[in-house]
């Protein structure tokens, strides 16, 4: 493998430092979750929807899990691989959770 020499590294770092100094260069392909405002539910809180602790009884129906019912056509899966068709509905700016 071709070695990257110390001079090249020094120049690149110097360039990066000046770049970082003048811009808040956020990578273009980034999504993020703000931690404040959409705080994660306490996993050990009783009965919380997103993190229940069972100091609360909950369901009236006995819960046996059942079977995997499948989600979609094989086409959707193929799209996920991007091999056969592209897929839409993606929004890189979208926040989650």
């Amino acid at each position, binding site marked *: *493998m*071709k*070695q*990257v020499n*110390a001079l090249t*590294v*020094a120049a*690149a*770092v*110097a*360039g*990066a*430092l000046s*770049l*970082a100094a003048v*811009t808040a*260069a956020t*990578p273009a*392909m*980034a*999504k*993020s*979750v*703000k*931690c*404040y405002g959409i705080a*994660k539910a306490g*996993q*050990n809180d009783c*009965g*919380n929807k*997103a993190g*229940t602790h*069972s100091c609360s*009884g*909950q369901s009236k129906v*006995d*819960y*046996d*899990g*059942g*079977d*995997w019912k*499948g*989600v*979609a*056509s094989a086409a959707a*899966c193929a799209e*996920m*691989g*991007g*091999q056969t*068709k*592209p*897929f*839409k*509905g*993606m929004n890189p700016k979208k926040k*989650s*959770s």
Partner: protein
Amino acid sequence: MLPDLQAAFRAGTIGRDAAAAAALSAGGMQNGHRFGIYRNNIFKSLTGVLEAAFPTIRNLVGGENFAVLAHRFVAAYPPRQPQLYAYGGDFAAFLAGFAPAVGELPFLPDLARVEWAVNEAYFEADAEPLAAGHLAGLAPEGYAGLRLGLHPTVRLVASDWPVWDLWGLEALPEPSQNPRPPEKQGGAQRVLVRRPENKVDVVMLTPGDFAFVGALAGGDTLGAAATAAAGAEAEFDLSACLAGHLSGGTFHSRVIVDTS
């Protein structure tokens, strides 16, 4: 005896042992018909914990299917610690072995790794990220020998699937009516997760950038990491890559200067 009773409770709940549950309800328990309340509590509460940690998977497979996954997972990998923010680290491994789901949606295990990385970053120790100013006092000829430690919240996930695109989706995509150009179609993606302050970033990295950060994570010097990156990606731009990581908070403020 108490140890036997507690073992029987375990068998009759997360052990999914119907005979054990029936024996417990019938023998020595008053209002034994209510034993199922405990079983429900355990499964439903842990399903909620997993839904919180894997919201994208929950959305993509739907609530009923997710409950199936969670139920099987809890039985196979019950929590070993009571602090449930840390429960779910084995979900990716479980999914990889759950044929019905992974046969249909083969990207699920890798997507679980990304979601778990986000969960870990959220709860990981706080630390000051490296800023450009931290390097200001160092001589440029020493840059190649620097060992830049990663921020403790950093996690790396590489996948053959477009996991960065998938992360955060609220539903499986419909078959496309507006095809994207081939070069924009999904494929292998590499993801870096970090929480330098109070926001978790999920960043897509180029192959070279991923190799670069991976090498730093392994303890390589900046020079060695740059070499690894150049080997992984012909067009790797060290300067732009470093600028992005410096402003994004990928590195820990502790820097080790190589003395060799």
